[in-house]
């Protein structure tokens, strides 16, 4: 019977936490108008979650594109279709790899930092201190980070895809001798703006919102100890990565059926 009790308790605890996470999201959404008067806070957070994530996005995007170029060429050349390398690299990146890999990197780089920052603010009573100074920490701390995450993520995914295509170009055209004109003209002809680019942007916006929500909630809900913050940070990366994969499947099924 003990296992049944434990199962029941962990089930209840899961749903209780899920409820708290949604109430947290509602409070954040209700606090969005307050950001209209706090543009500077948004800019600071765009720098922290966006600009500071640029390097890892640029480097990863370049290498992912280069590997795609190499692997794609080795497969396509057997069928004499190496001129299609550009479209293969571009579609892979714009539809899937750009949003998904950028989202993972974003969760690892910016998401974990957000959780640790908010969790430590809670552990050091900074959030309580704000409340006692009649300052709402949701509006002052959480909302600017949430909006910055939702804005930064699609931009980072776009940069990731663009740099990735460039990486594929460098390897395919520069190293393996694929025709320059064929590479770009195929990309131009086969990559649709609405079907591919816009859908990729929609995916990355959804990923940005979900990752930032998870990261901020985990920090806000963290047990205020060093171990609690450490666990919350780990949970952010694991939950956000899994959520990105699950959502990617759902969105892909809806967009490209």
């Amino acid at each position: 019977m003990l296992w049944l009790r434990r199962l029941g308790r962990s089930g209840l605890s899961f749903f209780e936490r899920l409820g708290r996470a949604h109430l947290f999201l509602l409070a954040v959404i209700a606090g969005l108008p307050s950001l209209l008067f706090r543009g500077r806070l948004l800019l600071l957070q765009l720098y922290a979650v966006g600009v500071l994530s640029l390097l890892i996005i640029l480097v990863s995007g370049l290498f992912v594109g280069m590997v795609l170029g190499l692997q794609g060429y080795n497969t396509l050349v057997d069928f004499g279709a190496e001129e299609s390398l550009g479209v293969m690299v571009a579609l892979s990146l714009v539809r899937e790899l750009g949003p998904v890999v950028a989202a993972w990197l974003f969760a690892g780089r910016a998401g974990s930092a957000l959780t640790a920052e908010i969790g430590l603010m809670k552990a050091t009573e900074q959030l309580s201190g704000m409340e006692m100074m009649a300052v709402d920490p949701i509006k002052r701390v959480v909302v600017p980070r949430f909006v910055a995450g939702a804005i930064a993520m699609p931009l980072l995914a776009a940069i990731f895809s663009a740099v990735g295509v460039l990486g594929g170009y460098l390897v395919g055209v520069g190293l393996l001798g694929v025709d320059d004109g064929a590479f770009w003209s195929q990309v131009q002809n086969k990559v649709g703006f609405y079907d591919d680019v816009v859908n990729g942007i929609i995916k990355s916006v959804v990923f940005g919102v979900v990752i930032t929500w998870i990261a901020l909630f985990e920090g806000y809900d963290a047990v205020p100890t060093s171990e609690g913050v450490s666990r919350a940070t780990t949970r952010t990366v694991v939950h956000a990565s899994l959520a990105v994969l699950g959502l990617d499947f759902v969105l892909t099924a809806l967009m490209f059926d």
Partner: protein
Amino acid sequence: MAAKNKKLDDVLVKVRGLSFSRGSRLIFDGIDLDIRRGKVTAIMGPSGTGKTTLLKLIGGQLRPDQGAIEVDGQNVHQLHRAALFELRKRMGMLFQSGALLTDINVFDNVAFPVREHSKLPEALVRDLVLMKLEAVGLRGARDLMPSELSGGMARRVALARAIVLDPMMVMYDEPFTGQDPISKGVLVELIHKLNTALGLTSVVVSHDVSETAAIADYIYVLSGGKVVGQGTPDELSRSDSAWVRQFMNAEADGPVPFHYPAEGYVDDLMGGGQD
């Protein structure tokens, strides 16, 4: 009648029948407290008696299971969020850790509540902040980051921040804990001086007997969820209550037992760890 009303108005914080539990642990069991205007009232008691919890209840950060807390005639836990925040603008709180915002310097920390709640020109904010920093002796430290401050300095900065909006009351959560004797002396002096000079009402939560007794006008001693003693420092020092005597004289054993509840010592040893 007028005299009676005046006496009632003298009470800034009124706690009545307060009960509060954390899980199955009862922290407060129907306690009554009065915090008088313009006085330094100390809440004392052994660690874990819920002194900090009491401040959080007074500040509306926690809700009681039963009972009521009135601050300046307003029932804290019946206020809407906006009204509660209005009330909190008139309540300063000094956290045990200082709770300074770690990403901004001393000046910006003290200016934080002013900038959040007013549209004062920056020149006026500067003057206001420098006046408060001067009052705590840290005007010269305005450009330091919180990580560059000692524990005592951090609490003094937090104190400057707590009084920057000229509140009607300040709550001090363990202000002397972990401080060296000089810092303790500075904080004792500051709390006393600010209370008198600014006409504040101060609530000091502490278990440092000598420092607190030196500045408190009235002391409540809490233990086991009850008020086990109350009075002026002089009255408490002469108290014949075993609880109060144990606490004020720092006796290791007494009503607050030295041993955490456990099974019999001999049985435990003879059991050989067969749990």
